[in-house]
């Protein structure tokens, strides 16, 4: 083979680090194989292996840019995977730290629709017994928010969460204390819903990130296999 030896060595090294990186994915979907080590190790190998892959890739290409169509696609996919991976690493560090203070309770992503339905049910129960003005205010201002979980950046910040919908203060001033208490309980329900929104937003961000990282990574694996075939065959 006329490939210079360093290029070949770095190429093989990059392929090996890619295989090590894939081990994390296998560990996640097959937790039975626990005797092969805790998932934490696999995660660390995945992240550092990915960075090593990038370094070896750069060396493998001898610091050149790719010169052919196929090479460009391989290279672009690799860069994309490593960059989104690094982004994901950062996100996985950041999101829990933002999400945890943003909400006083914990809810699983799959249970969120159920909770929102329950909150809405509770609100409707309260509203059913309330004064007509509260009822109309609710149906105009609050009902849409309680209809379904939604992505919103404002839900991450306590200040934005606590900000009431327009006109609440005015309405409260015109109500009797008993009705004001009813309005307050509605606002509390709304606040809870916003906290659920915070969970929904950030957990969706994490799941969405997976969408940009994983398919390209699988495609990259396939392309690398093809690349190895081409190198050997030609």
């Amino acid at each position, binding site marked *: 083979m006329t490939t210079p030896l360093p290029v070949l060595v770095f190429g093989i090294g990059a392929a090996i680090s890619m295989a090590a990186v894939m081990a994390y994915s296998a560990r996640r979907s097959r*937790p*039975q194989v626990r*005797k092969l080590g805790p*998932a934490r190790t696999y995660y660390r190998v995945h992240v550092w292996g990915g960075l090593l892959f990038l370094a070896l890739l750069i060396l493998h290409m001898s610091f050149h840019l790719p010169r052919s169509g196929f090479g460009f696609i391989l290279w672009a996919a690799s860069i994309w995977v490593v960059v989104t991976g690094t982004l994901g690493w950062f996100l996985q560090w950041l999101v*829990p730290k933002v*999400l945890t203070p943003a909400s006083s309770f*914990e809810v*699983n992503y799959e249970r969120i629709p159920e909770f929102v339905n329950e909150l809405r049910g509770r609100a409707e129960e309260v509203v059913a017994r309330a004064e007509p003005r509260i009822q109309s205010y609710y149906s105009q201002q609050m009902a849409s928010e309680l209809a379904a979980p939604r992505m919103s950046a404002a839900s991450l910040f306590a200040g934005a969460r606590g900000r009431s919908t327009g006109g609440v203060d005015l309405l409260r001033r015109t109500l009797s204390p008993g009705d004001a208490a009813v309005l307050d309980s509605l606002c509390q329900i709304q606040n809870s819903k916003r906290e659920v929104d915070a969970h929904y937003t950030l957990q969706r961000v994490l799941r969405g990130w997976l969408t940009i990282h994983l398919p390209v990574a699988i495609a990259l694996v396939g392309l690398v296999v093809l690349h190895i075939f081409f190198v050997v065959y030609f």
Partner: protein
Amino acid sequence: MSETIVMMARQFDDRWSSLTARPGLAELSSLRRPDQLRQIDLLREFDDDFLRDISPDLAIATWEPQATLFKAGTYLDVAFYVLDGTVDLELQVGDAHRPIFATRSVPLATEDFNLAPGESLRIGAGDVFGEIGAMNGWPQAVTAHTATRCTLLQIRLPALRKLKRKSKALKQRMDQVYRERTLRQHLRSTPVLQGLAPELIDALAAHVELVSCQPGDVVAREGSPVEHLILVRSGSLRMSQAIGTGEIAVSYVSKGSTVGESELLVDEMATWEVTATSVGYSELVRIPREDFLRVLKRAPELEKRLWAIAGERIKEIASRRAHLDRADLLDFSLAKGLTQANSVLVIDLETCTRCDDCVRGCASTHGGTPRFVREGEVHEGFLIARSCYHCQDPTCLVGCPTGAISRTNIGDTVAIDPAVCIGCGSCAENCQYDSIVIHDLGVTWGPDAMPRHLRGQPRSVASKCDLCREAPEGPACVSSCPHGAAIRVAGAEEFDVLIQTKRRRQLPLVPA
């Protein structure tokens, strides 16, 4: 009778009848009418309504000779009253299981009788046995066999509690039994009284008062005069102090510990420094002040020990008063049962990416169904997952009809044997922390299933965390988390340390 009672009776009937899995039970009848029940002298004094109320929890069983009633180490929620026949109780030499948890509270076992190891005792009609284990939730220390054909009145725990509350005479009688059989043993094995000379123990035993507490009962009130030293037999007490217009929790004691030692030692302290409240059901021993001080004069090493405990307690109280979040944590721990816990699954929410790999790991280690859910209370950014705590005094053990849920030793994990479990759900009902789940297996009971009510019904089974005891790698939840957010802590103190470490606060630790 009302429909509910009929239904409950049917359930309980099945629970009783599943005991026929044990050889030796010749006949079992439950749900007697009040007039039938009043024929038993123990129950003579009660009226019809009361008897009707407790009748589902009573049964009359006839046992063959040489039948095993229960083995040592069993958790029972039944007290036995011998109507006819004789029963042998043996204290076998236990095998040395090393507990896996460092037990922080005293391992008090139900030594119903002041037996020496290998000794056995024969009891006959009119005797009661097993009620201490039932009341306190402790494992039996003796093995009981029937010597002859016996007829026993078997009283379940709810009825037992009601009986004791209703009847002073019964309470006195049972306390008498306790005094005679077990009190000395308990006093001797209490750490603070260890090594005390037997005559001093006797002196104490003569004057103690036995108290049963409901959840929330105030045992000692801050500012009121101190008249007793309180020793906890089972359950735990929450100690609080008034601050401003409210009160904060400053300490807690569980079984084997004492309250009131500093008040007794220091002459100037005539009133309680704390308010002591029972957290759940508690059994207490109250030692009058003068008797205790008399004994104290004759036992200088006891005094030294008490001073040490008092000193520690003062430090602890001061620390908690100075840092209200420590008090808050204590309340939280008491409420969530962390003080009882031996192993709590805590998830650091500031690291957890909500990927649920922990649940997945648990599920795949246990055949596809997870043993916990990633839900629960959140405290300081830590989620206490609803996973079994392996309590020091597990309430789930009491009442299992088949013995599927068990603990091999006092310091060991609590495990459910899925082959034996019939899915009745009593352990799940008893667990205050929602840690036991019942799930369908997808098959139905055959036509020859022993619990008759279940024949043809879908089969379900209880399951809970077993700490992955068989696996050398340890709990699957911890090793499946890619970020190391799932941590197992061994109780409230370790949780405290964890919070301090992870949230990087530099507060002085509460002395353990």
